[in-house]
């Protein structure tokens, strides 16, 4: 197994959150299928998508939970925050109200995820610059103040969509390397790929070779 969809070393769990209609499902679709869904229906509860990416030579499978933005699904969607390694928090640059709600989304995220969860702020619909309601500078300042990563992206043109997902993964991977994220912790949102039976992924301890027994 050197290539193909089953060759990866880690699984990262992501969630995408934000107000209704900011383009969460479209971002997911653009990322997983490289296509823009023009008439995307409202998400009922949650949606799900996966893609395998490469960070620092390591193949990583992203399991992405796309949550419904509608208030009535909040109880259901809240339960998916748990154990997320990355949270993509999305607003719509053409609608200030979606930006104004970010602080409540952020509170939820901080309360329901663990401290090592990487939060990435995405200002979606950057292709609609003419109808802009929130400036880049303002959002950038909000991100900096709260220690979030930030880009403006467009699910329609695909601009910066890859970057947002990949940068989040890089940051998570970095946390693993630094030892800030404990893979064995129950809710880290990161897992090793299961070892295939008869062919364990983790190499047998090298010490054994030196041992005379």
């Amino acid at each position, binding site marked *: 197994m050197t290539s193909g969809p*089953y060759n990866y070393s880690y699984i990262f*769990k992501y969630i995408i959150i934000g107000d209704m209609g900011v383009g969460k499902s479209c971002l997911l679709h653009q990322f997983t299928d490289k296509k823009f869904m023009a008439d995307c229906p409202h998400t009922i509860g949650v949606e799900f998508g996966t893609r395998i990416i490469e960070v620092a030579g390591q193949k990583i499978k992203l399991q992405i939970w796309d949550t419904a933005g509608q208030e009535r699904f909040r109880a259901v969607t809240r339960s998916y925050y748990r154990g997320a390694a990355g949270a993509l928090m999305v607003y719509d640059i053409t609608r200030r109200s979606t930006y104004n709600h970010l602080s409540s989304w952020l509170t939820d995220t901080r309360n329901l995820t663990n401290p090592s969860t990487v939060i990435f702020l995405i200002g979606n619909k950057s292709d609609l610059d003419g109808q802009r309601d929130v400036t880049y500078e303002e959002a950038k300042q909000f991100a900096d103040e709260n220690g979030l990563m930030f880009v403006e992206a467009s699910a329609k043109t695909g601009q910066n969509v890859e970057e947002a997902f990949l940068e989040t993964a890089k940051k998570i991977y970095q946390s693993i390397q630094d030892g800030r994220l404990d893979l064995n912790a129950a809710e*880290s949102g990161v897992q090793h790929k299961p070892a295939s039976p008869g062919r364990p992924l983790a190499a047998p301890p090298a010490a054994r070779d030196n041992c005379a027994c």
Partner: protein
Amino acid sequence: MSSFVNHREDSTVTVEETSTKDNVTYYKITVKVGSVRWTVLHRYNDFVELHEKLVSDHGVAKELLPPKKVIRNKTPKFVEQRREALSEYLKNVFNYLKLTMPSEFAHFLDFHLYDIFFLLQDLAKTLFLEGDKLLECEKSHNFTPLELHAISERLKIACPMTEKQDQMYDFSHILDFCSQLRALNIEGSYEKLGTSNIVPNDLRFDLIPFKSLLDLKILGVPMACIQSVGGLRDTLVSLSVSTASVVSLNEFLLVDILHKDPSSIADTVKWKKLSVINFASNNIDNVDWAIKLVPRLQHLSLSSNKLKELCDISCLHDLRVLNLSMNSFSVCENWHAKIGNIVRIDLSQNRVESLQGFSRLYSLESLDLSCNVITDVEEVQHICKLPCLEYLWLTANPVASSIDYRVKVLEQFNARMTELCLDNEKASEKELDTARVLQALRVVKEGKTPSFLQNNNTSHSFNKS
């Protein structure tokens, strides 16, 4: 199927009966969760084993379990006493562990067989460990209606607190697997599941998690169970729905559309890639307009249904193979106006009398009419001009038992008689010789060459009179 996290307060565990097998006493535990119930058999030793784990890992009081007794532990009086004590024990432990519901306890009570969350935890683990291997090696994967129902319901409800902390049991792994699966089999059942009162075919499910499904086989599941086909309209290539008591194709093709009215159907409900449909062994009596929703259809099988007539399906430009065996066709009129560029037709085991309706299916290469009621060998006149016809089955028709049946049929194909494979067999040299003689006789008799240019009304009326 039970949903314990939603019915915690509406659940009970009791020991109501005992039974003896091979000199071992079993206690029959009845679990009720809402309206769902099932029973589990355990001997006393199983209780002891469970109790040890619960005491060490979950803080259950050690003295709670009724004590062991080595001698005279088989007397009816003692067994009855122990039954009561065990019932009381389970009631107490259940009340105590209701909120956390540790896995050992859930398994002891068979929650992993009948309850949405515990079943999915086990499934998640399996798919986490084996999923990639299954996707790589398996030709198709079977999901039970029970599993599909659990997945659909699970998506609607918030994560319960009882969920195991280990990420191996995370629901993501199931959706991950489903979203990559290419071939899915679902087999239904009207039989109650295990010891429970759950009937699999009463459970509703949707197919939304299956995002890259190409091949779907449904066996014995009523269409009413399927609430949504999700994205299947964009991905599915091959569909099989058999023994599902389906009366019309739109039962599946429009399964999630409330108003099955041709005028209000939008292009979005078309099955964009579907090219093979098999609805064998159902109750279909008419190929309805819904077939137009499958514009790329190449292969349609409606074997073992109740069809009498074929409606106009000429809109299916790609249709090549049509299997209508084991139906009730008797008259087949002007099929060239109903089906276009067809290559293979299987009409075996019907009641077809005449071949007239096939006379202009010029692209036809294979026609199976075995086990029908064709009596007159001259019927072959209708199809002997079909330029591509190479395979013809007339076996087990009355005509096939007439004298010199094979040569009489072959002879009518004139120069093409050497190419024809009749009833799985090409003409032997001897048959060809006889056929040529017959042909010569016909020429003499009719004073014309060759017979296929001739109107054969005369021979017809002669035979009928």
